[in-house]
């Protein structure tokens, strides 16, 4: 009798172990589906940007590339887009807050896949890549220039190239050397003294500068990673070989990412972003100006004369639905920031919109703990991940960089 009981018990325990572990496939069908949806091969081809008729014109991209790396596109002649968007560093600068002419209050965003965004900057205060490109040019902390000076500079340095793409430059002979509606008091006064037609001419040249830079930036796309090779093998049923094979820790991290830790809720799709804005309780940085994220960006994008509904958009208004149907108020946009792509993230600390966290371990610890937001409501709930689980998530995130 006792022997029978022991045998029965052992048998049952073995069966349980088999059912619960060894016999179970590594990923469920639902998990496989989610993993496949994150792989780079599901990234659709880049859609045309109808608001920028020069977006896919090689000559515009070439001029845009020249302007992107040209220090002359700044007040002091030393700051270009590439000062912060460094080509060898995923087009970012490794600093907690970008430094142009002076230190800004935000982390430089990398540019891979940037043309796929609906909103630009951490708070989405611009609604097109070309409108975005114009903003640092006049920001006193970044390139610190002014649009009249940029128009003169373009005519002097790149007049012929410009005219081959955009047609004849306007007569700038009576345009002040420095003038902008956003500049210093003197620049504002100079701008306000300009006839409306002349302001429009300068704005047109300025918009075209943005359109050329955007045409160049459209070529910056994310590259395949170890994760993508693993995901493709998983989807096709092939056994991942070489670096496509994941360690048990990386597999645990991936399972947590798409499961218990719910990272995939916002970091979804082949770019690992939902292109939306969320308050995740990231603390402000001492000493920086008040920063409330999306809630303050709404008015800025609406007021931007270069937004999709403005006079400088090419194509028709049907391209402006993101702006037309944007969420303008409500608690959910208080201290909400854009979900960043996680591709390449492991190689570009620090993290968050003002470089609040120095390491991925700190990022994962933040989401595990989920502190309350200082203003607004954090959408994140505590996960209470173990040390092993947090390390596994970091290990998985690194597969998006290799």
């Amino acid at each position: 009798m006792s022997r029978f009981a022991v045998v029965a018990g052992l048998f049952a325990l073995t069966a349980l172990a088999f059912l619960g572990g060894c016999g179970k496939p590594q990923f469920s069908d639902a998990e496989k589906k989610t993993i496949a949806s994150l792989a780079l091969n599901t990234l659709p081809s880049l859609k045309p940007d109808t608001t920028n008729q020069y977006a896919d014109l090689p000559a515009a991209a070439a001029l845009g590339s020249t302007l992107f790396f040209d220090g002359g596109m700044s007040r002091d002649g030393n700051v270009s887009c590439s000062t912060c968007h460094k080509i060898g560093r995923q087009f970012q600068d490794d600093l907690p807050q970008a430094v142009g002419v002076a230190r800004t209050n935000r982390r430089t965003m990398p540019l891979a896949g940037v043309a796929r965004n609906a909103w630009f900057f951490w708070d989405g205060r611009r609604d097109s890549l070309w409108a975005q490109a114009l903003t640092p040019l006049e920001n006193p902390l970044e390139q610190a220039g002014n649009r009249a000076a940029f128009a003169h500079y373009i005519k002097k340095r790149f007049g012929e190239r410009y005219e081959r793409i955009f047609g004849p430059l306007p007569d700038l002979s009576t345009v002040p050397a420095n003038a902008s509606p956003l500049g210093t008091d003197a620049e504002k006064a100079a701008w306000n003294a300009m006839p409306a037609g002349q302001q429009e001419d300068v704005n047109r040249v300025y918009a075209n500068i943005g359109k050329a830079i955007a045409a160049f930036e459209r070529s910056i796309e994310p590259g395949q990673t170890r994760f993508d090779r693993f995901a493709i093998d998983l989807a096709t049923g092939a056994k991942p070989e070489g670096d496509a094979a994941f360690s048990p820790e990386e597999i645990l991290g991936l399972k947590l990412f798409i499961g218990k830790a719910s990272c995939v809720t916002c970091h979804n799709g082949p770019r690992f972003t939902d292109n939306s804005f969320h308050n995740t309780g990231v603390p402000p940085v001492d000493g920086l100006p008040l920063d409330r994220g999306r809630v303050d960006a709404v008015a800025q994008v609406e007021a931007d004369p270069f937004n999709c509904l403005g006079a400088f958009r090419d194509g028709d208004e049907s391209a402006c639905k993101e702006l037309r149907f944007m969420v303008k108020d409500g608690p959910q946009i208080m201290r909400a920031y854009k979900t960043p792509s996680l591709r390449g993230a492991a190689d570009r600390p620090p993290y968050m919109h003002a470089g609040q966290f120095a390491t991925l371990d700190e990022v994962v610890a933040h989401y595990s703990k989920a502190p309350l937001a200082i203003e607004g409501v954090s959408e994140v709930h505590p996960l209470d991940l173990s040390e092993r689980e947090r390390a596994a998530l970091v290990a998985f995130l690194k597969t998006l960089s290799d």
Partner: protein
Amino acid sequence: MASVWRYILAGLGLAALLVGILAAIYLMSPQSASGPDLSRSKKTMNGLFVASFEPERGVVRQGELQSWLLTLKTAAGAPVEGAAIAVSGGMPQHDHGLPTSPQATDYLGDGRYRIDGVKFTMSGWWQLHFGISAAAGSDSVVFNIVL
């Protein structure tokens, strides 16, 4: 004394067997079918209208701005014209609202209203609430969409 151990062992064995069987049933059973009501056509809260809600192009695509059609009929089946429609919604399990502000943009005739600017940015359970005011009165309806 020995007989007590015998009973304990037998009990343990049977318990383990039972757990094993339950685990097997749990692991092999299909995902539970219960969840929010996913019907795309239903009576409004107070029964004033029958509302149907469908993506205009037939398929729901996560992460894309899409237009949907809200069709309103009276309980007798007559199309509801001139309705004022307020749209709201969100994800009940995440305590957040919609990522866009969809609006009724066009009346297409036959009780059909275009609801444009709908975007679902993540998988999961979404809700769209419609506040409807028409000649027959005001009513509301909630549609559940699970991606």
